[in-house]
């Protein structure tokens, strides 16, 4: 008992989600969600307030030009989307929105809880317009609860998720990942997962539903291990301490031109990954008696003492400082040592692995007269390759296509709507 429109989907669509339309009303808090659905082939329409979404003010900017059509964050997180403008606080805007909902499959939004309800555009209302509509709401703490109205810019979300605890070193404040928001991106992917679950359910029930995504929940999913231990009283409160039995061991090491990540392992792991490193050091005459004498099968770092650890550290440090990131990683690949570079953006662009995978994509930007190199889609699918089908939309770029051609509004009507600030 599924609508005829769904049945026509079978052969014609490109991409895993080809037949589906998404109305994307999110701001930064949910913006990745629509990109993922778009890269998977859905027809995603970004719906912005007239004049453009505030997200366009977030840098970095193309050539440092602080312009709403030059935000690199906007570029990165809005691929594969078309764009229209619409003020859903106006009567005309709401009428147009309802018309769009009629032929859409998903509405994704990140307004404060209750905002859409207040406009008469909450799930209960949208369901009447289109029983199959799936509404995905992405908010800092969910639709209900004691913190539902708490303000949650990234640093607050990061702190309250547990990710921040203990990160930053003993004598400094705990710290976040710099630049744009991480937690919002986690929630964006979970929003897409929730959307897909609701889509699956719709085949069974014939109905859509409301998907309530919490940014805090999304980010906090990593706290299981220590939390379990904590409930039995055997873990440190500090989420960042683990596994070193109180010894100060090194995992981050300086090298000639940056940093690498490596930690000595013990037992079977140690035999496989620590010994090859020591052998390499020996080849270059940089090992010492202690390191070369370790039986990695039986040596347990955690049972040793700080003096031993410090000695190992000092010798290893010197070796790493005599090489660059690239040299060390090359050696790691060749000798199968679990050693990895702390990569920069440049390192990633120069990665032979990503190049071999043809990961980087050229996306045309006709408005700039050039194409830009973008990171590719998140998955490689053999049957329906994911694509960055287009660059991020300009403000109101597809108003003509959507309102004019699709909804049949005349140019006079479009003029009225534009001049009155509805679109």
């Amino acid at each position: 008992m599924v609508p005829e429109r769904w049945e026509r989907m079978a052969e014609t669509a490109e991409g895993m989600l080809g037949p589906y339309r998404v109305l994307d009303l999110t701001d930064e808090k949910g913006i990745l969600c629509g990109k993922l659905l778009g890269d998977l082939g859905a027809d995603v329409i970004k719906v912005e307030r007239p004049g453009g979404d505030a997200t366009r003010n977030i840098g970095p900017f193309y050539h440092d030009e602080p312009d709403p059509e030059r935000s690199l964050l906007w570029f990165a997180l809005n691929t594969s989307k078309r764009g229209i403008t619409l003020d859903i606080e106006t009567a005309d805007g709401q009428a147009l929105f309802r018309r769009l909902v009629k032929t859409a499959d998903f509405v994704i939004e990140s307004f404060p809880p209750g905002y859409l309800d207040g406009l008469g555009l909450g799930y209960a209302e949208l369901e009447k317009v289109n029983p199959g509509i799936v509404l995905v709401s992405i908010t800092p703490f969910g639709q209900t609860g004691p913190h539902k109205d708490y303000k949650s810019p990234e640093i607050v979300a990061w702190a309250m998720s547990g990710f921040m605890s203990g990160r930053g070193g003993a004598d400094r404040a705990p710290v976040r990942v710099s630049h744009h928001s991480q937690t919002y991106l986690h929630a964006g992917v979970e929003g897409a997962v929730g959307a897909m679950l609701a889509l699956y359910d719709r085949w069974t029930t014939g109905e859509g539903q409301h998907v309530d995504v919490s940014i805090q929940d999304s980010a906090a999913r990593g706290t299981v291990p220590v939390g379990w231990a904590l409930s039995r009283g055997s873990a440190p409160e500090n989420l960042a301490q683990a596994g070193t039995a109180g010894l100060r061991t090194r995992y981050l090491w300086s090298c000639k031109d940056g940093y690498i990540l490596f930690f000595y392992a013990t037992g079977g792991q140690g035999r496989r990954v620590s010994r090859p490193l020591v052998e390499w050091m020996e080849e270059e005459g940089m090992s010492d008696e202690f390191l070369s004498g370790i039986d990695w099968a039986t040596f347990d770092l955690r049972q040793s003492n700080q003096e031993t650890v410090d000695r190992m550290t000092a010798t290893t440090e010197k070796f790493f400082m005599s090489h660059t990131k690239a040299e060390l990683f090359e050696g790691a690949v060749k000798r199968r040592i679990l050693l990895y570079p702390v990569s920069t953006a440049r390192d990633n662009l120069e990665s032979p692995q990503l190049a071999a995978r043809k990961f980087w994509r050229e996306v045309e930007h006709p408005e700039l007269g050039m194409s830009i190199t973008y990171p590719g889609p998140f998955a490689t699918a053999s049957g329906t390759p994911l694509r960055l089908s287009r660059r991020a939309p300009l403000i109101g770029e597809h108003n003509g296509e959507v309102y004019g051609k699709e909804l049949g509004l005349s140019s006079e009507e479009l003029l009225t709507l534009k001049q009155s600030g509805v679109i």
Partner: protein
Amino acid sequence: MKRKLLEGVKIADFCWVWVGPMTTKTLADQGAQVLRIESKTRPGVWRVSPPFKDNVVGFNRGGVFNAINTGKMSVTVNLSHPRGVELAKRFVAWADVVTENFAGGTMERMGLGYEELRKVKPDIIMLSAAMMGQTGPHANMPGFGAHLTAISGFTHVAGWPDQEPADLAHYTDFIAPRYNALAILAALDYRRRTGKGQYLDMAQLEGCMNFMGPLLLDYTVNNRVPGRMGNSHPAAAPHGAYRCLGRERWCVMAVFTDDEWRRFCGVIGNPAWAADSRFATLLGRKENEEELDRLVEEWTVDRTPEQVMAEMQAAGVAAGVVQNARDLFDCDPQLKHREFYPEIEHPEMGKYFTVAPPYKLSKAPYELRRAPLMGEHNEYAFKEILGMSDDEIAELVVEGVVE
């Protein structure tokens, strides 16, 4: 009985460690039948790693294992035995989806690569979630979340500009499972419409690149390598983590607008320094940020982070406790409201807890079921799924194919 959203979805699950199991947990928690193909002789990491219940070692007593493998079934098959591989293929014939997260090329070497499995089940959906993907010069590099976090670029941009990068532990382990679940669900929908399966080669590294998007474009467009900025934010001040009352207790605060700055000053009692013209504008506050942070901390240091958060949020200013494990589990009222850490009964663990899905579907409530004991579903799997007789099963046990 509650309706299960993913009822009827069958998954032959070869996953281990964290990323794989968290992927299939997402699906099992919504009712999919996830069959873990495990081995007693080569048990997965979390079957044998602490924390253990009461510190007693056992396959079924691992806290992490039980938390991340909710709702799944377990069979024990020796995949080093050729007949074990045959058995595995028969489970694939039963399944809709195959999941694995070994290093690139591993399944193929075992005779369980996509091309082989397609012969067994032409419309199979297979997901491989290796760190670097199945192809390329680094495809079969082993590694864990900490390593991936470093090579994908997060480590470099976390921490203070004048210090080495901060430790983000295995941050990327919490990114990949989300992408994996998304890919599987999208592929299931495609298959429902077209009857076609496919191979999902998910390089965890590539999924992470989306989380670095704006910074990667900063390099490709502006030739700039983004670095570390501590807790500062270009459009807010104060913005950072401030020491509070208690040992290692911190609260974060973020003031973006003039209105928020006025409210912030109100909460801290409108001290004389706050009226200083240097702090009157955002640009002024940014220019004098170090001093501003120092002054703010003089106020926070006498208060608990909970007090700071409550007072600030009540006044419309963003603030949050830097929560540790105890805060999350015992104190956070919102996580309690979301029932985020549900407890489940388990024969060997007693009560233990896991983590709930981060979304609530209004018409499809989830149900969290306990993780399986090692080999718990051998009988069900061999008899019901594969239709084997007791004699056939006994033979396989004797041969060491079934453990």
